[in-house]
C-alpha cells in the first residue's frame, strides 16, 4: 500500500503501476457530467475556469450531502466523462478518480501526458465519505450534488487503474 499526497510530484505518478493500491490524502475536486460540460464550454471559449485545474485531481462523484456532512461519496462511472477527459489532461489535470474502464482516447491521453487514472471502489460510498475531512463548494452551487466541491481527504483507498505508461487493470 503506497501513501500518496496531493499535490503530486510527477515522479510519484511515474512510479505507479496498474494494480497498485494507494491511500490518497490532500485536496481534490469533484466533478461529474454537468460540471464537466460547463468547464469544457469555458475552455472552448477561452474563458477563465472557476477552479485551477493545473496539477489537479478530479474525483468523479456526486456526493450525498446532509447539512454540514457528506454522508456518502463513492465514485460514479468514469466513461461518461471520457468525452472531456483528454482535454482536461491536456490542460494540466494530473489524476482522475472514478470507476470502470476508459476509452482508447483517454488511455492515449494518459500515456501522452504522463498522468494517472485511479479506481475507487464503486458501491463503497460510506467508506469514502469517512475519508473526507472537510469540504466546501468551489463552483456551480446551483448544480446541487453535481457542483464542484473542494474536498480535503485522508487515506482514501484507491487502485491504480491506468498508469502513466498506459498499463491497465481492466485490459489484462
Amino acid at each position, binding site marked *: 500500500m503506497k501513501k500518496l499526497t496531493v499535490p503530486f510530484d510527477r515522479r510519484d505518478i511515474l512510479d505507479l503501476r496498474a494494480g497498485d493500491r494507494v491511500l490518497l490524502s490532500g485536496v481534490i475536486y469533484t466533478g461529474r457530467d454537468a460540471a464537466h460540460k460547463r468547464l469544457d464550454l469555458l475552455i472552448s471559449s477561452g474563458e477563465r475556469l472557476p477552479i485551477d485545474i493545473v496539477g489537479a485531481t478530479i474525483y468523479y462523484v*456526486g456526493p450525498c450531502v446532509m447539512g454540514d456532512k457528506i454522508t456518502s461519496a463513492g465514485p460514479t462511472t468514469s466513461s461518461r466523462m471520457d468525452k472531456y477527459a483528454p482535454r482536461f489532461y491536456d490542460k494540466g489535470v494530473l489524476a482522475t478518480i472514478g470507476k470502470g474502464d476508459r476509452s482508447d482516447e483517454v488511455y492515449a491521453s494518459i500515456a501522452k501526458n504522463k498522468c494517472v487514472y485511479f479506481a475507487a471502489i464503486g458501491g463503497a460510498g460510506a467508506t469514502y465519505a469517512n475519508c473526507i475531512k472537510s469540504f466546501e463548494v468551489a463552483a456551480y452551487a446551483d448544480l446541487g450534488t453535481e457542483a464542484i466541491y473542494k474536498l480535503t481527504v485522508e487515506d482514501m483507498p484507491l487502485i491504480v487503474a491506468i498508469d502513466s505508461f498506459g498499463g491497465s487493470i481492466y485490459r489484462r
Partner: protein
Amino acid sequence: MHYNLSMRTINYRQIVDAVAELTGACCGLTCSCKAVLERALDRESNGAARYAIGELLKNAELAERERLPVCQDTGLAIFFVQLGQDVHIEGGSLYAAIDEGVRVGYKSNGCRASVLDPITRVNTTDNTPASVHVELAEGDEMKIEFLAKGFGSENMSRLYMLTPSDGIEGIERAVLDAVSRAGSKPCPPIVVGVGIGGAADSAMTLAKKQLLREVGEHSDDETLRELEISLLQKINALGIGAQGFGGCNTALAVHIGKLPTHIAGLPVAVNIQCNAVRVARTIL
C-alpha cells in the same frame, strides 16, 4: 347506490410513513446481498477483486453502523405496488403519498437528490417524482416494494427483440451480450434481471421486477431455473470480475421471469443491478 361494505380504508399518512421507512433501505444492503458477497469473497482468488469485495462488505457494515447511505447513488426511487381492489385510499392520491414519503425519507436518511428534468437538467432537489408501478390484486391489503436503483447499472439496460427461431440459445447470447457490453461500468459483481416475453414495455418492467427477489433465489419454473444457473456460470466465465478487476465474480445471481408473448416475437430485456442491492417491502 350499492356500497361494498368490505372496503378497507388506508390513509394517505400511513402510506407516507411506510414509504419514508422503506427508503431507510439505502443505508445498508439486503441480508441476501451480503450473504452472496461473502460467498463471492470466499471463492475469489484474484487479489484486486478480493480487495474490492472485502471493501464492499466493510462498507456495508460501516453504513449500517453509522446509518450512512451505502452508495452515494441512492437511486431513482422505484416502487412496485400491489393494490388490493378492496382498498380505499383516503386523504390524498397514492402517487402523492409515495412522493411525500420519498421526500421525507431521502432527506432524513442523508440520501441524494438525483432526479431532474431530462431536457433542462434542472434538479427537483428532493428526489421526486418516484417511479411507481401499480398492479391491482385481490383482497384488501396494499403491498409496497421499494428498489433504490442507481443509474450506473440502469444505463446498461438493454432490450433485444429476438425472433422465435432464436430460441434459448438466442436468449443466452442476448444476456451475455448485455453483460459483456456493460463490462466494468455497472459496479460488478452484479445481479442480472431478465424479462423474457410480453412486449417491449412489459419485458423491461418484468426484467426490473426480478431485481426485487432475494439475491440468488431461483425461479419456480424449472426451465428458467436451469437457465439462471447456466447463465450465471457463463457470465462468471467472462472474467470481467468485481469492479472489472478480473476474477470469477462478475455476477452474484441471474433472476429470470417470463410472460406470454406474440407468435412473431421473443422479447428479451436485461436490467442490471449493481452490487449494492437496496430493496425493502411492507404490507399495509
